[in-house]
């Protein structure tokens, strides 16, 4: 598609819980200022937040790429972390490999990926153990936004 209206890349530092959620909050702000349908923004922001937190919790470093098209928003979360052995299993509600100290911080209920799936219209996960993970999701913009 070459009718890309807007794109921006947000860098994410692994283990940086203090700034956790900033990228998705910036994404939300950008979409709000563009006057995009609030329901679409909410779904994008929630899904982005889950992808961002997974990068922070499980990897050293990664990024979120936001792309806005007239009829659709795409977010691509890329990292060079440990990868996911069994994607199908990771997609199950409640499945988590988060260690105890992460659970103490309120993460690790195994709801992140399912939550992305719930909020996105399309979801694609590509993961290579030892190399990294790419989570791509798209959310359609209904006609007559603004």
């Amino acid at each position: 598609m070459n009718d890309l209206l807007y794109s921006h890349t947000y860098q994410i530092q692994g283990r940086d819980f203090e700034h956790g959620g900033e990228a998705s909050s910036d994404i939300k702000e950008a979409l709000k200022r563009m006057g995009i349908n609030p329901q679409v923004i909410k779904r994008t922001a929630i899904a982005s937040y889950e992808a961002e937190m997974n990068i922070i919790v499980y990897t050293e470093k990664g990024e979120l790429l936001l792309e806005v098209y007239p009829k659709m928003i795409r977010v691509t979360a890329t990292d060079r972390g440990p990868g996911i052995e069994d994607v199908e299993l990771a997609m199950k509600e409640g499945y988590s490999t988060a260690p105890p100290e992460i659970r103490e911080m309120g993460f690790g209920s195994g709801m992140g990926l399912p939550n992305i799936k719930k909020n996105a219209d399309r979801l694609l996960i590509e993961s290579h153990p030892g190399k990294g993970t790419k989570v791509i999701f798209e959310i359609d913009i209904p006609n007559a936004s603004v």
Partner: protein
Amino acid sequence: MPAFNLYFHSLRIKEDVCKGCTHCLRNCPTEAIRVRNRLAQIKDLKCIDCGDCVRFCPWGANEVLTDDLSVLSHYEYRVLVIPPAFLSLDFLGLSTSEVMGRIFALGFQEVYEEGIGEEAYLEETRRILTKGNVKKPLISVACPAVIRLMQVRFPDLLSHLSPLNTPRDILGATVRRKLGKNSGLFYLAPCPAKITAIRNPQGIEKSPYDGVIAANILYREILRVNETTSGKVHLSGPSGVAIGRIGGEKEFLSPLRVLAIDGITNVVRFLKELEMEKVPALDLIEGRSCPNGCVGGILLPERDSFLNLYRLEQEERKRENAISPLSREDMADFLYLTMPIQPRPQYFLSENMEAAAKLLKMIDKFYEKLPKIDCGSCGAPTCRALAEDVAKGEASLEDCIFL
């Protein structure tokens, strides 16, 4: 009364006093202030009249526009509605009845306490939260700065706003109906937000009030007159007094799940969480712009909100068995807002998504060049805000002292 202006504000900067420092700039919750040529300016479309610029100005350069007592002369019969926070003030030993007597000596014939409206407001709030199908958490409309904050920064949360009319206007409209043509109804404001809410009302067609007087002006006159006359006083019960402090709605709506938040920056933080649905199941948000609620209003002569809070709680205790002179039924016709509360248009970069995206790309481009330290020296509150001003042609990149 001055002419109504769509974006009327009650805050103004005194150009001869302003030093062009950045105290207000840094503390404005909606980034409505710019310092240009050593002078602070308020952006009308962004200002929510919370008054934090006044609170944080060390020089007293931000002033609040209000009526003074001379407006009383236009009316034969004059009625004043006072916010409960007013009775939390230290009147240098004067009793409540002496204070009232002096208010009458200053030209009023009747005084009502805003809390009377609050009692109906609380009762109706409980009813719609228990029975109605409202979007939870509902956000209380009692503080006008919070409503405006939502119009300016959180347009998508406006659907959470309570459909109820404000306690101030529920009471005001009820009293107004009883008054004749030559009578004037006045509100005593603890803050610029309420002055603006009366001059430029949201959610109702027309304010029931004929004028609005700043609490500190009346306070000064009360200490000065030194005589009393008689008139009619209508005070509320304890829950009406509690509207003057944070936690009043929470306490009197228990066991409903009410979260009380004071301080406009705390309200901003919470609304961001609510937008992301990262909050527990709640029935109502009691948000107040000022620290400790209206007892922290910037037009109260005593700026220490903790002392005001203490005195207000004493007053609540004194009223324990007091009964409000008006019932919910008396005020039933005015319990709800009659018009929708709309977002402020400027929030969107453009009406059209493509144009907005273009502007956003420009903002990103300029922002990349800036040091991202939000020092404020350029006169914009953040590097991001300067980038936006540059993209809109309102400032130049060279305003940044690092470039």
